[in-house]
């Protein structure tokens, strides 16, 4: 494998790790704040799946980097400008509708991305995809059910759900952006060509939203930047909290 490809895979694994840890963290913020106990458990489950994925992706990135760093160095010792996660995933948890709509957007996305990643020539990435596909199937069932119930529930729940969809819509466009690194890996049969998934995503999401009596927004705005480290103001605060203990005791084991 050429150094160029190896570096690209390391970068790609890091991006996927960043996506997973950021969303896993946001979901974990719900534990003990859910609308009832069963939801605390469900949130815990989904968060565990994502943090679990992050560990696999980061461990692989660390293995490729081969410079003595481990998964925690990737999660805890990089600043927000170095993080490469999608913006959608770093948005604060908001209310229950907001979190479930974000989750629906992410779950539909992974429902499309993961089967493609399973076909990757890179066995480690394909292996993570194989595990994650099963989890995402359950995640989507849950977020879909919630969006249906909230959208077509009471006037208030409908209003909140519509608002969440409108507020998050502009962050969904970059889910399908490609750059040179990913294009290089697509050419090698390693990464997923996400640019081809937008139509399928839009169809699945629109069907669910329509069934939930929610209006699908016009594509009037789009915010981008996650993959280049151009984040929202929220990520810095999230990482400050997440990294505080680890960084306060440099070089320690936990």
């Amino acid at each position, binding site marked *: 494998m050429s150094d160029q490809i190896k570096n690209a895979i390391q970068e790609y694994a890091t991006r996927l790790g960043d996506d997973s*840890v950021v969303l896993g*963290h946001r979901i*974990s*913020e719900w*534990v*003990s*704040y*859910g*609308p*009832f*106990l*069963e*939801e*605390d*458990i469900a949130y*815990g*489950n989904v*968060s*565990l799946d994502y*943090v*679990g994925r*992050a*560990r696999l992706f*980061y461990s692989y990135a660390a293995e490729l980097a081969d410079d003595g760093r481990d*998964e*925690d160095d990737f*999660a*805890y010792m990089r600043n927000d400008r170095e993080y490469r996660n999608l913006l959608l995933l770093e948005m604060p948890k908001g*209310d*229950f509708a907001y979190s479930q709509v974000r989750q629906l957007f992410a779950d539909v996305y992974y429902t499309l991305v993961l089967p493609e990643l399973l076909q990757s020539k890179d066995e480690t990435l394909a292996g993570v995809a194989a595990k994650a596909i099963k989890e995402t199937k359950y995640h989507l069932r849950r977020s879909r059910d919630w969006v*249906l*119930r*909230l959208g*077509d*529930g*009471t006037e*208030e*729940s409908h209003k*909140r759900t519509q608002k969440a969809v409108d507020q998050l819509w502009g962050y969904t466009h970059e889910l399908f952006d490609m750059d040179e690194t990913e294009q290089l890996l697509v050419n090698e049969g390693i990464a997923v060509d996400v640019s081809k998934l937008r139509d399928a995503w839009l169809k699945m999401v629109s069907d669910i939203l329509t069934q939930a009596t929610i209006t699908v927004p016009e594509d009037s705005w789009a915010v981008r930047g996650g993959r280049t480290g151009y984040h929202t103001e929220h990520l810095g605060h999230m990482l400050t*909290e*997440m990294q*505080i*203990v*680890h960084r306060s*005791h440099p*070089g*320690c*084991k*936990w």
Partner: protein
Amino acid sequence: MTAPQEENFMRKIQAEEKIEPKDWMPEAYRKNLIRQISQHAHSEVIGMQPEGNWITRAPSLRRKVVLLSKVQDEAGHGLYLYSACETLGISRSEMIEQLQSGVAKYSSIFNYPTLTWADVGAIGWLVDGAAIVNQVSLQRTSYGPYSRGMIRICKEESFHQRQGYEAILELAKGSPGQKEMAQDALNRFYWPALMMFGPHDSESAHSQKSMEWKIKRETNDDLRQKFVDQTVKQIEVLGLEHPDKAIKWNEERGHYDSSDLNWDEFWSVINGNGHCNRQRIEHHVAAHEEGEWVRDAITAYNDKKRAKKAQNAA
């Protein structure tokens, strides 16, 4: 008329047969159980807060996963226990109302704040450790659903206890700063953990009847002694200082002698005036109230579905 029923009930208790939901039981037995099981359920649920406080700051991904799983297990324990309690004729929403209005209690230990990462380890080690001593004994409790719930819960709790101890061990063997954090957590959580066993037997309002009915199987003081004894060695292995300067092996008793507890503090926290009593209940109430529109949405959605189904059938 109740005499033969009561006789039959006491015969079962004495023969170590379990009492099941549909069996006749004295009203006071039922009430006593509801009090104890719901208190236990509420403890699991409120206990999610002090540990949940550290989920977003866990210092490694592995610790984050372990802590998330643990807090999730607690929510699960809360669920089994609410279900066990519902078999006695009280609903979960009634229990939650009693918790929020202060009629029902939860374990006072959760009214102490978790100030550092080491507190998460100390809770696993000491608080879950103390809970297990109590719960192992409750596996033999006379009420069937409670006993079965305890058997299941004990398995998970002992896993938590090991994880907590391991987390503290890592700190105790770590940097001076980490070790200091571990010692500080031990100093703060040791005494409240001992208080988890409740007042002295002589002061305990519910103990005697509970023992007679075999709801409780061992006394508060006996269980506390077990915990004191098992903890001495654990502290030694960690290389930390024992918070009780008076701790001393008593050859004659075959147990450690220890200082008496600060019972003023104990009663003050029980009566609602601990560090976090207000905060814990406010947190629970706020989450519950914020969740109301979500619960309403489910009801409305289900009603609509049902109406549609009825319409289609007609």
